[in-house]
C-alpha cells in the first residue's frame, strides 16, 4: 500500500514536469513520424519497379497472347510494355530499347490448332546481355508452362475423340469439357501448390529467411522500445532527487519496508511505460493513417502483444533501478542514460530494424534487452506471430528484468 502512495506521489511530480512528459510522450511520436516518412519515401523510391523492361509487340491480340502477356508480367523479373511494331523496331535499332519480344499474328489460333508458335526476342547489340538472358529465361519459363497446358489439353481432346464410339454414359462421364476443366484446375493448383517446391538456400544459412517486414512500420515498435527504456532514467533521477533533498532519509525513517520503498519508486516508470506504449501504438495505428502513411498492424494475438508490452515495461523499470544503483551523481545519470540507453537502442534494433541487425552484427545484439523487445514486438505486430511463436523473446525479456532487479537490489545504496 505504501508503495502505491509513493508511486502516486511520484506520478504527481512527474506530470508537473511538462518537459519530461513531452519528452517521453511527444518525442517518440515525432521520431516515428519523421522516420516512417523518410523510410517510406526511400523505400517507395527503391520500389519504383526495378523489373527489367520488356517491350512487346503483340501482332495477335487474341486471348492466348493476352494470357502470355499477363503471365509474363506476373512471373516477376520483367515488366511488360506494349509497343506498336512501327514504333518499336526503330527504337530498337537506335538502341533506345534494349530488346523487343514479338508475338506473331495468329498466335491464339495456332495454339488452339496445336501448331507450334514462334515468339521472337530481338535484342540490340549493345543491350546488357545479362538482362537479355534474364528476360529469355522468364519468357521461356512462361512459354513452357503454357505449352504444357496446351499439350495436355490437346492430348485430352485426342482421348475424347478416341472415345467417340464408347457408350453414352461413358462419353458423358468423360466428356472433353469435364476433362479439360479438371486438367485446368489441376494445372492452376500445381502453380499455387506445386508438388515439388524449390527453396533457394545460401551456404552457411541454416534457416529459411523470414519475410522482412516493412521498414517504415518497423519504426513504430523500434521507437516504442527505445523510448520505453528511456523512461528508466526518470526512475533513476527520481531516486537521485529524493536522496538529494533528503526526503529519501525521511522515507527510510518511516515504517516502510525497503522493498516496498523501491517498488514505489519503480512503479511509476512501469505505469508510464504502459501509457507510453498505448500512446505510441494508437499513433501507429490511427495517427499514421491520418497522416496518410502506412499504419502499423497490431498482429493477431492481443495476449502476446500485452505480455510483450508488460515485460518490456518491467525490464525498463528494473533497468532504472540499476542506473539509480550505479550512478552517484546527476551527470552520471544523464551520461548513463544518454550513452547506454541510446547505444542499447541502436544495437538492439530500435533504430536499425532487427531483421537487418541479425545480418549485420550476428549474435552481438542478443545480449541487449532492446533486441528481444524489438523482436517480440516485430514478430507479434508485423509478422503476425502468436504467443507460442514468441516464447523465446518473452522468456529473454523476463530473464533480463529479473537480472536487472537482482543487480539493482544488490548494488542499491540505502545509506
Amino acid at each position: 500500500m505504501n508503495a502505491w502512495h509513493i508511486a502516486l506521489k511520484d506520478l504527481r511530480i512527474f506530470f508537473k514536469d511538462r518537459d519530461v512528459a513531452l519528452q517521453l510522450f511527444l518525442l517518440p511520436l515525432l521520431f516515428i513520424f519523421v522516420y516512417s516518412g523518410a523510410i517510406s519515401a526511400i523505400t517507395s523510391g527503391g520500389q519504383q519497379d526495378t523489373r527489367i523492361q520488356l517491350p512487346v509487340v503483340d501482332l495477335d491480340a487474341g486471348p492466348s497472347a493476352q494470357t502470355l502477356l499477363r503471365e509474363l508480367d506476373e512471373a516477376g523479373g520483367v515488366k511488360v510494355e506494349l509497343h506498336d511494331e512501327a514504333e518499336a523496331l526503330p527504337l530498337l535499332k537506335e538502341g533506345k530499347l534494349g530488346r523487343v519480344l514479338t508475338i506473331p499474328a495468329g498466335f491464339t489460333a495456332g495454339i488452339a490448332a496445336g501448331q507450334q508458335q514462334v515468339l521472337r526476342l530481338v535484342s540490340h547489340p549493345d543491350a546488357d546481355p545479362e538482362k537479355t538472358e534474364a528476360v529469355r529465361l522468364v519468357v521461356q519459363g512462361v512459354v513452357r508452362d503454357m505449352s504444357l497446358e496446351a499439350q495436355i489439353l490437346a492430348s485430352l481432346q485426342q482421348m475424347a475423340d478416341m472415345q467417340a464410339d464408347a457408350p453414352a454414359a461413358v462419353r458423358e462421364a468423360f466428356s472433353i469439357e469435364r476433362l479439360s476443366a479438371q486438367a485446368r484446375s489441376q494445372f492452376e493448383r500445381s502453380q499455387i501448390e506445386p508438388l515439388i517446391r524449390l527453396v533457394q538456400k545460401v551456404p552457411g544459412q541454416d534457416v529459411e529467411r523470414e519475410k522482412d517486414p516493412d521498414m517504415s512500420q518497423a519504426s513504430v515498435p523500434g521507437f516504442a522500445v527505445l523510448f520505453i527504456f528511456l523512461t528508466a532514467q526518470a526512475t533513476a533521477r527520481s531516486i537521485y532527487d529524493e536522496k538529494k533533498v533528503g526526503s529519501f532519509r525521511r522515507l527510510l525513517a518511516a515504517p516502510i519496508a525497503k522493498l516496498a520503498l523501491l517498488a514505489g519508486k519503480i512503479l511509476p516508470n512501469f505505469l508510464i511505460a504502459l501509457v507510453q506504449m498505448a500512446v505510441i501504438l494508437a499513433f501507429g495505428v490511427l495517427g499514421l493513417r491520418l497522416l496518410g502513411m502506412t499504419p502499423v498492424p497490431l498482429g493477431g494475438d492481443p495476449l502476446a502483444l500485452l505480455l510483450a508490452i508488460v515485460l518490456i515495461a518491467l525490464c525498463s523499470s528494473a533497468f532504472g533501478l540499476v542506473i539509480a544503483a550505479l550512478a552517484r551523481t546527476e551527470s552520471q545519470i544523464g551520461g548513463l542514460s544518454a550513452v547506454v540507453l541510446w547505444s542499447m537502442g541502436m544495437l538492439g534494433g530500435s533504430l536499425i530494424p532487427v531483421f537487418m541487425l541479425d545480418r549485420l552484427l550476428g549474435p552481438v545484439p542478443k545480449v541487449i534487452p532492446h533486441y528481444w523487445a524489438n523482436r517480440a514486438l516485430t514478430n507479434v505486430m508485423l509478422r503476425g506471430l502468436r504467443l507460442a511463436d514468441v516464447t523465446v523473446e518473452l522468456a529473454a525479456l523476463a530473464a533480463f528484468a529479473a537480472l536487472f532487479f537482482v543487480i539493482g537490489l544488490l548494488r542499491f545504496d540505502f545509506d
Partner: protein
Amino acid sequence: MPAILEVENLVKKFGDFEAVKGASFTVEEGEVFGLLGPNGAGKTTTISMLTGILEPTSGTARIGGHDLRKEPDEIKKINGLVPQDLALYPTLSARTNVSFFGSIYGLRGKELKERVEDVLRIVALTDRADGVVEKFSGGMKRRVNIAAGLVHQPRLLFLDEPTVGVDPQSRNQIFESVLRLNRERGMTIIYTSHYMEEVEHLCNRVAIIDGGRIIAMDTIKNLINILGGGVIYFGVPRVDNALLQEMAGLGGVQEATLVPREPAPPPSPGQEVKAETQLAAGETIKIVARQSQQAVLNVINLLNERDLALTSLEILQPNLESVFLHLTGKKLRE
C-alpha cells in the same frame, strides 16, 4: 517520568572513521533534550541510528520499550523526524507534502485530513497550505518540514537543526511550535543544534557532543555551574607555576590554568620576525571564576605587584558556549 529513550554505548563506523564513539544517554517522556555540538560532531549520525536510517555498528537503544535492532518498525511508528535538509517535494503544495508523509505512516481518509489541517495550524501555514513549496521562503519551507514530521503524532520527535537558514521571525515561530507541542501534547523532543542560545531556550537537559563522543550531559543550569562565575582570559608576557598557584588562591578565583599556546606558523623565507609579533606571542592564563568581578580585580592587582603588563583581557559570561569552550578548547561554531 519513565524513560522513552535509553541509548547504550551506540557506535557508528564508516570504514575506519568512527563517527559516534559509544554514546549513552537516557531521555524521559515529556522532556525536551538537546544535543549540542559543532558541525560534524556526530549529532545527525546519532539521530540517523535512532530513527532507523542507519544501522549501528555496535551498541543498542530502546525507544518506548522497543529494541532498536529487533523491532525497528515499532520504533519507526513512535518516532517522528524533522531532518536537517528540507526533505520535501518542491513542486507539490504544502498540504500535498504533509498529506503524503501522513499516508506513509498509515493515516487515511478523514483522520489524515484532520491531522494535516492540525499540523498546518501548529506551524501557522493554514492560509498558505495550497501554495507550492518551491515558492515559499526559507522559513516557511522549514515550517512545512516540521509539519511533515509531526503529522502522524509521534511520541518522540527528532528535530535535527530545524532553524538552519531561517529568519528570526520564523525561528521564533518554530520555537513556539516546539514548546507548544511539548507542553500541550506531551511530545518528547530531541533537539540538535550548534546554536547554544536555542538549546538554552528550549531544552531541559543537554548532552554536549564533540568528535563523536558525549563529553558532558546534565541540566543547563548544572552545566553552566561548571564555570561558576564565568571564564576570564588574561594575556601576559610570561608566566610561571608559582604565579598560577598564587592566582588560584585569590578571592573569587576557582581555577587558574595556562592555555596551551598554538604553534606559530614558521616565517616565510626572507620574512623578518618583528618585535610586536614577539611581544604578542606571550602567554594566556585561563581563570575559572567563582565571582568574575572580584576575580578580575584581584588578578590585575597581582600582575601589577609582579610588574607584569596585561596584554589582553577577555571575560566570558557563563553559558553553554563558554562551557563548550571550557570543555573542548574550541568554539561551537569553529
